């Protein structure tokens, strides 16, 4: 618990660093919110009009004053107002987040459910035809861009079966679970396929390593069956790299999957952030990046805690 406290204590420091980076980065992009909002009409504004708009958005102040006001607001729970949505930034983010979280979780479930058995099978049948098959599919999975796979799925469904993936207004899970799943399953498969390919490859190589370890030989010398050797003795030792990989991938997915959201017309975090950047919606970009960074840190912490649960040799926070 002591360790947990110390880890949590580092969170504000990291977030402070991230906030400075994103604040500076978004302001280094040419253009501003006013031009982005009004387009060519921005050229018609008189200097006085432009100044008053700038004052309204608070972007006429020196950058450190802007930063100070932004951070001060966050400490009071106020992430600012999005200029594109005209609503509090946190509300906009939290509205989008459930979809992104659900999509990420679904993809991970698919990846682990497919990838781990495939990897274990390949490792226990190494250099046999089925191992080769698994490796080829995994290679394809890793090297197929998600837009290709997404479009292929949509094309196959519509051309082959005459159905289109469920589009239209997104239904949250707690309102219409069936409709929600029908909307998310294809995007989840699209994302999960590449994810599963990585999981397959890493669990195959981890299993192969572990299967040649001495304690596996010991288990066999006791008369343990092939199944018990794999599931009871080898697998728990092979899980660490799988957990590491899954944590990283999951963390990325929590930042939104722009391309897949675009293809399946889903209102997720990824598209929101992209739009916010294009619109120079400073408050929303900054808020979203902080939010994503925070999620990533939580995921990393969970991964570290998972290590402790998996391997009694790992003790966190010892010098």
């Amino acid at each position, binding site marked *: 618990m*002591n360790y947990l406290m110390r880890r949590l204590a580092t969170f504000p420091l990291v977030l402070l660093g991230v906030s400075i980076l994103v604040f500076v980065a978004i302001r280094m992009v040419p253009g501003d919110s006013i031009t982005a909002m009004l387009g060519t009409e921005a050229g018609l504004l008189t200097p006085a009009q432009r100044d008053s708009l700038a004052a309204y958005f608070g972007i006429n102040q020196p950058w450190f004053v802007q930063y100070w006001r932004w951070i001060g607001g966050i400490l009071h729970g106020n992430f600012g107002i999005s200029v594109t949505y005209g609503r509090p930034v946190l509300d906009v983010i939290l509205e989008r987040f459930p979809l992104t979280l659900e999509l990420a979780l679904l993809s991970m479930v698919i990846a682990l459910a497919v990838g781990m058995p495939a990897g274990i099978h390949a490792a226990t049948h190494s250099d046999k035809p089925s191992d080769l098959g698994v490796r080829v599919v995994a290679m394809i999975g890793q090297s197929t861009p998600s837009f290709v796979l997404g479009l292929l799925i949509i094309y196959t469904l519509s051309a082959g079966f005459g159905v289109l993936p469920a589009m239209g207004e997104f239904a949250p899970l707690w309102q219409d679970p069936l409709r929600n799943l029908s909307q998310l399953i294809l995007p989840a498969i699209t994302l999960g396929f590449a994810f599963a390919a990585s999981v397959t490859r890493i669990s195959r190589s981890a299993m192969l390593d572990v299967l040649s*370890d*001495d*304690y596996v*030989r*010991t*288990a*066999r*010398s*006791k*008369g*343990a*069956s*092939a199944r018990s050797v794999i599931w*009871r*003795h080898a697998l*728990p*030792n092979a899980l660490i790299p799988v957990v590491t990989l899954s944590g990283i991938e999951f963390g990325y997915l929590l930042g939104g999957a722009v391309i897949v959201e675009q293809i399946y017309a889903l209102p997720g975090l990824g598209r929101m952030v992209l739009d916010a950047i294009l619109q120079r919606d400073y408050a929303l970009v900054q808020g979203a990046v902080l939010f994503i960074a925070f999620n990533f840190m939580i995921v990393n912490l969970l991964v570290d805690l998972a290590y402790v649960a*998996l*391997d*009694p*040799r790992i003790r966190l*926070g010892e*010098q």
Partner: protein
Amino acid sequence: MTPLLSVRDLHVGFGRDPHANEVVRGVSFDLADGETLAIVGESGSGKSVTALSINRLIDFGGGRITGGAMTLKRADGSLFDLIAATEPQLTGIRGAEIGMIFQEPMTSLNPVLTIGTQIEESFRLHRGLTGRQATAAARDALDRVRIPDAARRLKYTPNRLSGGMLQRVMIAIALACNPRLLIADEPTTALDVTVQAQIMALLAELKRETGMSVIFITHDIGLVAGIADKVMVMQNGQAVEQGELNQILDRPRHPYTQHLLQDVPHFANGSATRADGQRDKGENTEPALKVDGLVVRFPLKSNFFSRATGAVHAVDGVDFDLMPGETLAIVGESGSGKSTTAKAVLGLVRSTRGSFSVGARAASAERRAKPVQMVFQNPYASLNPRLAIESILAEPVIANGGRVDTETRARMASLLERVGLPRNSLQRYPHEFSGGQRQRLCIARALMLNPSVVVLDEAVSALDVSVQAKVLELLVELQREFGLAYLFISHDMAVVERIAHRIAVIYAGQIVEIGDTASVLSKPKHSYTKKLIAAVPTIERRREHFEIDTRQVPSLVRPQGFEPAPAKWEQFGRDHMARVEA
């Protein structure tokens, strides 16, 4: 009477074409009920492969049995063909009728499961026990291998136990279901000599209790004297000699067996020790290395911010001097502080206190000598696999600001020749050399800077006996030729006996006895030295009953500010003294 195990003309091969790559080529032996067979040989002799073939674990190591017959007499008297058996049939034999223990107890237990779970598994598999019954059986099994406080230790994971304890757990697992055959594959090689004696004693006792048969595989022919009824000596995949224990030990016929027997220690008469280089302080020679009151402590902190609450006293007041042309062996068990002493001498560990002085020989300016160099234990890990030998030998020169010029190249070539490697080795890579050759390379590297002192940290421990002998010979020749002083760190008394002029026995960070080799080995005075020497297996002490000694090494953790009492020494003879025991 049919033997318990009968092996006829066994052939085992590896790889895609096992017939072409045979590692075991026609081995035959019989093992009767209650009998112990020792299989002795060096690495690559096929002894482990033979053992793993018996319970067919070799199938999982990429091996294939390419010929021969193996029959096991089962508990009900029926004969079981081990070669024709299917994998499901074999899982019923393994653990139930044939138990096995391995060389590395540290890696042979599953790190993520408690030892209780791992012992219980045997009972679940072959006895059908579950829940409390299995736990109770596991506790009994731990009691049986004399692990104190068994109920609590069942909940430990392997990382919390020492190597000796883990080997006992392995034995508990192997013997859980009372197999009638135990295969022990170098079970004590990775352990300290006193722990080895404990494990051997335990095996002997359990054998008496259960009447099981044992196949004991070892590279140390001295070890088999205490346990075996029959001995089989293997070389290059074939049994070169086999017979009754006394016949093999007293009247070995094959030259290889004779050679193996020649290299076992003979402490009692001191005859095998070196006679050259009598220590003569009269001539007023400067010591090559003088260590005074060396202390190495590692502070212990409960967490990063708090102050030290105590310290690990790894080395606690060590003094010795080392004359040119002399070998001082520092012997002790793991954790005694012998390697830390060596590292402190080299400056690889910062000493807390104490002083070193290195002899005047280094001062001669034109030789640009670096006084202390080192040769490490593992020749496979201490040469960078991506560097050619030329770069490896150039490394110490470059590190000391030198240039690789014609002089350096000439030195490389002459040193290579001197350590017995072909001149064309310079362009080759480490993987092209055998273990012994690599250790020769390491020696050549250490000599590149023309040192006055060479620290040899377990330098021959990883080598086979016959290779070991040749490397030791080379070291002695080089010592005479260059007047080198060796600081020889080792746990192996047999090796120390052959190379050391003097011995310092180190225990819990302190030297407890120091003196000339013959005197210390034949007339040890300190109780720890006696225990250490008594634990070394020799062929003279045949079928001797080992006492089980479960005393633990004292903790080296001391409270903050603790200072050991000043040492009191007692002198025995001209060059032999021991610490007075409290």
